[in-house]
C-alpha cells in the first residue's frame, strides 16, 4: 500500500533541529504513538473481551432467548441467572451476549460502510472542486440540517422496523461527517506537487483519487470509522428508547436498556444497569481508540 508519499515522509522525519532520528516506516511511527497511549491499549483489550463475550459466550453459557419464561419474570440476580431476569423472563446475562451481537454488528457495519461512502463522495467533491463541489456539499448540508428523529419516524411509518432498515438509516445519517472531513483534506491534497505530477503524466482523475488522494486521508478514515462505530451503537440505543425499536426476537443493548428503564421505579435495578454499563464501556473503548488514533496520525501535535 502506498500510504504516504516518500518525499513527504522525509520532510516529516527530519526534525526542525536538523538531527535525523531513525523512526522506521510511517506505519511503525503511528503504531508506536498509539501503543504509548495507555487508554488506547485498554480500549483494544476491552473490545476484544467484548467480542469474545458476545460470540463465544453463548457457546459456554447457553440460555433460551427465544421463548419467554413467564414463570421466572423480574427475578433478582441469583442462582441460575447471575444478572437476574427481565420482564419476559429472559436471562439477562445471556441476553447481553445475544444483544451484543446485533449491537456490535450494527456498529461495525454502519461505521465501515458510511465511512467508505463518505470517503468516495468527499474525495470526488474535493478533487473536482468548483460547481460540482458546491452542489455536493450543499447536499451534505441539507442532510445535516434535517433532524435525525424526523427521518426515523417517517421511515417507521412506512416500513416495518428491522435490523437491516436500521442499518440503512444509520448509514444515511452517518456518512455525511466523513464526506465533509475527506472533502476538506482532498481540497488541500489536490494542490500538492505529486498530484500535479500524476496529472501531467496523464493520470486519470479516478487514478488520482483512488491511488493518491484516498491513501493520504487514511488517518481521517481510520479515526472516523472508530467514532462511527461508537456513535451508531449510541444512536441505536437512543432510537429504541423513543420507540423505534426492533421486535423482541432481535434484542440489542439499547432495547434492553429502554425496556428496563420503565421498571426502574419498581426497583428492578438489574434490568437497567448491566445494559447501561456495557453500552458505556463499549462506546468509551471505541472512543479511546479513536482518540489515540487521532493523536497518532496527527504528526504535528506529537511531542518532539
Amino acid at each position, binding site marked *: 500500500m502506498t500510504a504516504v508519499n516518500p518525499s513527504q515522509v522525509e520532510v516529516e522525519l527530519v526534525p526542525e533541529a536538523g538531527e535525523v532520528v531513525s523512526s522506521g516506516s510511517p506505519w511503525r511511527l503511528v503504531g508506536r504513538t498509539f501503543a504509548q497511549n495507555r487508554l488506547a491499549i485498554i480500549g483494544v483489550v476491552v473490545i476484544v473481551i467484548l467480542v469474545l463475550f458476545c460470540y463465544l459466550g453463548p457457546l459456554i453459557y447457553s440460555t433460551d432467548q427465544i421463548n419467554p419464561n413467564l414463570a421466572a419474570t423480574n427475578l433478582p440476580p441469583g442462582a441460575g441467572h447471575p444478572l437476574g431476569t427481565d420482564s419476559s423472563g429472559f436471562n439477562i446475562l445471556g441476553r447481553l451476549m445475544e444483544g451484543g451481537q446485533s449491537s456490535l454488528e450494527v456498529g461495525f457495519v454502519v461505521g465501515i460502510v458510511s465511512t467508505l461512502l463518505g470517503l468516495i463522495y468527499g474525495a470526488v467533491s474535493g478533487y473536482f472542486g468548483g460547481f460540482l463541489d458546491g452542489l455536493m456539499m450543499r447536499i451534505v448540508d441539507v442532510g445535516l440540517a434535517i433532524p435525525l428523529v424526523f427521518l426515523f419516524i417517517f421511515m417507521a*411509518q412506512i416500513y416495518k422496523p428491522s435490523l437491516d432498515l436500521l442499518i440503512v438509516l444509520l448509514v444515511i445519517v452517518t456518512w455525511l461527517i466523513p464526506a465533509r472531513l475527506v472533502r476538506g483534506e482532498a481540497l488541500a491534497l489536490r494542490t500538492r506537487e505529486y498530484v500535479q505530477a500524476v496529472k501531467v503524466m496523464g493520470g486519470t482523475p479516478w487514478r488520482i483519487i483512488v491511488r493518491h488522494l484516498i491513501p493520504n486521508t487514511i488517518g481521517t478514515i481510520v479515526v472516523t470509522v472508530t467514532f462511527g462505530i461508537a456513535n451508531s451503537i449510541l444512536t441505536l440505543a437512543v432510537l429504541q*428508547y*423513543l420507540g423505534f425499536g426492533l421486535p423482541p426476537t432481535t434484542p440489542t443493548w439499547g432495547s434492553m436498556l429502554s425496556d428496563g428503564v420503565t421498571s426502574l421505579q419498581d426497583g428492578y435495578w438489574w434490568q*437497567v444497569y448491566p445494559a447501561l454499563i456495557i453500552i458505556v464501556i463499549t462506546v*468509551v473503548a471505541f472512543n479511546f481508540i479513536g482518540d489515540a488514533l487521532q493523536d497518532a496520525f496527527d504528526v504535528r501535535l506529537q511531542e518532539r
Partner: protein
Amino acid sequence: MTGFIIRRLGQSVIVVLGVTLIVFIMLHLLPGSLARDILGSRATAQAIAQFNHQNHLDQPFVIQYWYFLKQLLHGNLGYSYQFNRSVDSLLATELPRDLVLGGLSLILSLMIAIPVGIAQAVKRNKAGDYVGTGVSFILYSMPQYAIALLLIQLLSISFHVFPAEAPQGTSALSMLEHPAGLVLPVASLTLVSFAYFSRYMRSSAIDTLAQDYIRTARAKGLSERLVLTRHLLRNSLIAVVTLVGLSIPVVITGTLIIEQVFNFPGAGLEYYQAALRNDYEVMLGITVLVGVVTVVGNLVADIGYAILDPRIRY
C-alpha cells in the same frame, strides 16, 4: 469579507430550500389522505373533493410545493387540524420555554467546559487530564436519556431533593418561578453538552499550544500565567463561537429526549407527541424550523469565526 458573507448567505438559502423540498417530498410519500383524516371516513366524495380543492391538494406536486413555500415565507409553519391551532401559535408558547432550558444549560456548560478543557490541554497526558477525559467520555458514551434517568433515580427517587418533572407553566417566566423543577432538566442538558464542549476546548487548546507564537512567548521568558491568559485563553476562545453557533438549534428548539424524559413542555416534546398522534403538519413545521435554525447556527459560527480570527481570509 462582504463577499464571503454574501456567498455564505446564498449557500444557506439554497440549503434551507433543500431541507424544505426533501421534507415536503417525504411527507408526500406517506400513505393516507389529509381530507379523510379531517372529514372522517363517512365524508362524501364531494366534500373530499371540495376540501382537497380548498387546500390545493388537487394540484400537481410542484404547485403544492410552491404554495407551501409561499406560506413559509409569510412565517406560516402549518396548521394542526387535530388541535385546530396554527403551528405558529403552538410554537409561540413553547419556544420561550426552550429558551430558558437551552440558554441556562448553554451558559452553565460553557462556564464549566472552558476552564476544564484548557486545564486538560496544559496538563496533557497527566493524571488530571486522564480523569477529565474519562469523565467526559463516560458522559458522552451514555445515551442522553440514561444521564437524565440516573439523575432522577438519584436526586428524585432515592433522595427527594428535586422533582422529576419540569414545571408546567404556560410562559417562560412562570417556568422560572419554580426553579426546583428546572434543576434536573438543566443539569442533564448541561452534562450532555459539557462532554462535547470540554473535548472540543481541549483539542482546540492543544492546537493553540502547538503554535509558534506560544513557543515564542515562552522563549522570551513570559511567565506561564501570562502565556496561558494572554495567548492561549484568548485564542482558544475563538472556538467558543463555533460551540455557541452549533448550540443555537438546541437553545431555540430544545432537545427531544431531555424534554421527553422530564415532560418539559417545549418544541421537542411537541414534536415527539405529534409523531405519536400522526400530526404531520406539526412535524413538518417543526422540522423546517429546526432546519432553518441549524443553518443559521452554522452561518453565525462561520461568520463569527471569520470576524474574530483575522488570520482567516476568504
